C-alpha cells in the first residue's frame, strides 16, 4: 500500500473582472486542495480553473519560457509557472492580481498592446546593409559574450509593469523590457544602426524616465538586469556627446 500524499489546502484571493458582467472588479475568495505533485503556483491555478471555469488567465509552456502567465503574486510581479507553491506561508491567502499598469481584458488577462508598441519602437531586429553572407554573420566569442543577459528576455512584461516610470508615461517611456531589447541590438556587433538607435532613445521620455528604481531587476523571472543595460545605453550616449 502506498503512503497517502500530504495534501495542502491553498486559499486564494483573486482579482476578478468580466467587463460583460461585472460593474467593477472584485476579489474572489477561493481555495483548492493540492497534492505534492503540484509544485508550482500554475499547477494550483489549473486546479482552480477546473473548480471555477470562469476564471481566466494566460498560460502556455508552463516552464518559464513563453512568458504568458505573468501576474501580480502577493504584490510582486512574477510567473505563476516559476513560483514555488511550497514557499507560500501557511494560513495566509495568496493574492493574485493582473499585471499593474495595463488595461484589464478579463480577470488576470491584460491588454499588452502598449507594451509591444514600445518594444517595436526600438526596432527589435538586426539592421545590416552588407551583402548577405553565404552562411551566417559571424561574431567573435567575446562579442557574442556581450549579448548574454540581454537576449534571454521572454517579454513577459513583469519588469515593465513593475516600473513606476512606465505607469506614469506608458505611451512615451520605452520601459525596461524595451530598453533591454534596445541595448541587445546596440551591443550586437553585427548591427549597423547604432547611431540611429541611440538617436531614437536620446529623449527625456523614451530613455531618461528611468530613475534607476530597479523594480525591473527585482521582479525579472529570468534574472536579467534591465537597469544595467539602461546604464550602458546612457554611458554610450555620454561617450557620444563629450
Amino acid at each position: 500500500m502506498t503512503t497517502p500524499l500530504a495534501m495542502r489546502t491553498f486559499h486564494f484571493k483573486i482579482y476578478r473582472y468580466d467587463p460583460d458582467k461585472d460593474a467593477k472588479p472584485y476579489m474572489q475568495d477561493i481555495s483548492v486542495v493540492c497534492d505534492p505533485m503540484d509544485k508550482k503556483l500554475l499547477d494550483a491555478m489549473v486546479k482552480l480553473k477546473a473548480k471555477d471555469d470562469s476564471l481566466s488567465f494566460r498560460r502556455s509552456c508552463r516552464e518559464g519560457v513563453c512568458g504568458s502567465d505573468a501576474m501580480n503574486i502577493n504584490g510582486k510581479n512574477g510567473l505563476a509557472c516559476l513560483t514555488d507553491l511550497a514557499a507560500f506561508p501557511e494560513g495566509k491567502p495568496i493574492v493574485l492580481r493582473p499585471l499593474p499598469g495595463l488595461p484589464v481584458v478579463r480577470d488576470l488577462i491584460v491588454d499588452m498592446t502598449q507594451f509591444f508598441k514600445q518594444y517595436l519602437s526600438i526596432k527589435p531586429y538586426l539592421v545590416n546593409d552588407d551583402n548577405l553572407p553565404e552562411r551566417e554573420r559571424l561574431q567573435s566569442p567575446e562579442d557574442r559574450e556581450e549579448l548574454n543577459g540581454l537576449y534571454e528576455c521572454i517579454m513577459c512584461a513583469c519588469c515593465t509593469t513593475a516600473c513606476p516610470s512606465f505607469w506614469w508615461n506608458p505611451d512615451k517611456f520605452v520601459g525596461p523590457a524595451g530598453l533591454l531589447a534596445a541595448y541587445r541590438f546596440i551591443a550586437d556587433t553585427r548591427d549597423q544602426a547604432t547611431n540611429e538607435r541611440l538617436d531614437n532613445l536620446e529623449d527625456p521620455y523614451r530613455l531618461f524616465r528611468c530613475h534607476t528604481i530597479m523594480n525591473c531587476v527585482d521582479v525579472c523571472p529570468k534574472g536579467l538586469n534591465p537597469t544595467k543595460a539602461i546604464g550602458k545605453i546612457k554611458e554610450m550616449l555620454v561617450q557620444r556627446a563629450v
Partner: protein
Amino acid sequence: MSRLVVGAHYGVKDWLAQRITAVLMAIYTLVIFAAVLAGATSSHDAWRGFMAHGVVRFVTFLFIISLGYHAWVGVRDIWMDYIKPTSIRILLHVLTLLVLIGYAGWAIQIIWRL
C-alpha cells in the same frame, strides 16, 4: 488631431549634469562637515571668518549653482511625470526656474556680503 510626439533629442546632458552636481555637492558637504568638526563654527566670529575666506566663498558659490541646476533637473522631472497639460507644465517650468534663479542670486548675495 491628437498625435503623440516624442524624440526631443535631449536628456543626456541633464542626466550627466545631475550626476556631476550631485558629486560636487557631496564633496562640499563632507568638507563643511570636516570644517565644523575642526571647530570652524565654535563661535559666530569663527563661523563668519570661515565663510568669508576666499576659497570657501568660491566653493560655496559652486555649491549653490550645483544645487540650483540639480534641483532644476529633478523638479522638472516631477512636472514631466505628473503634469500632463502642456500649458500648465510650461507655467510650472518657468516658475521653478524663476524661483531657483532667485534663490541662487539671493544665496550668493548673502555669502558675498560676509
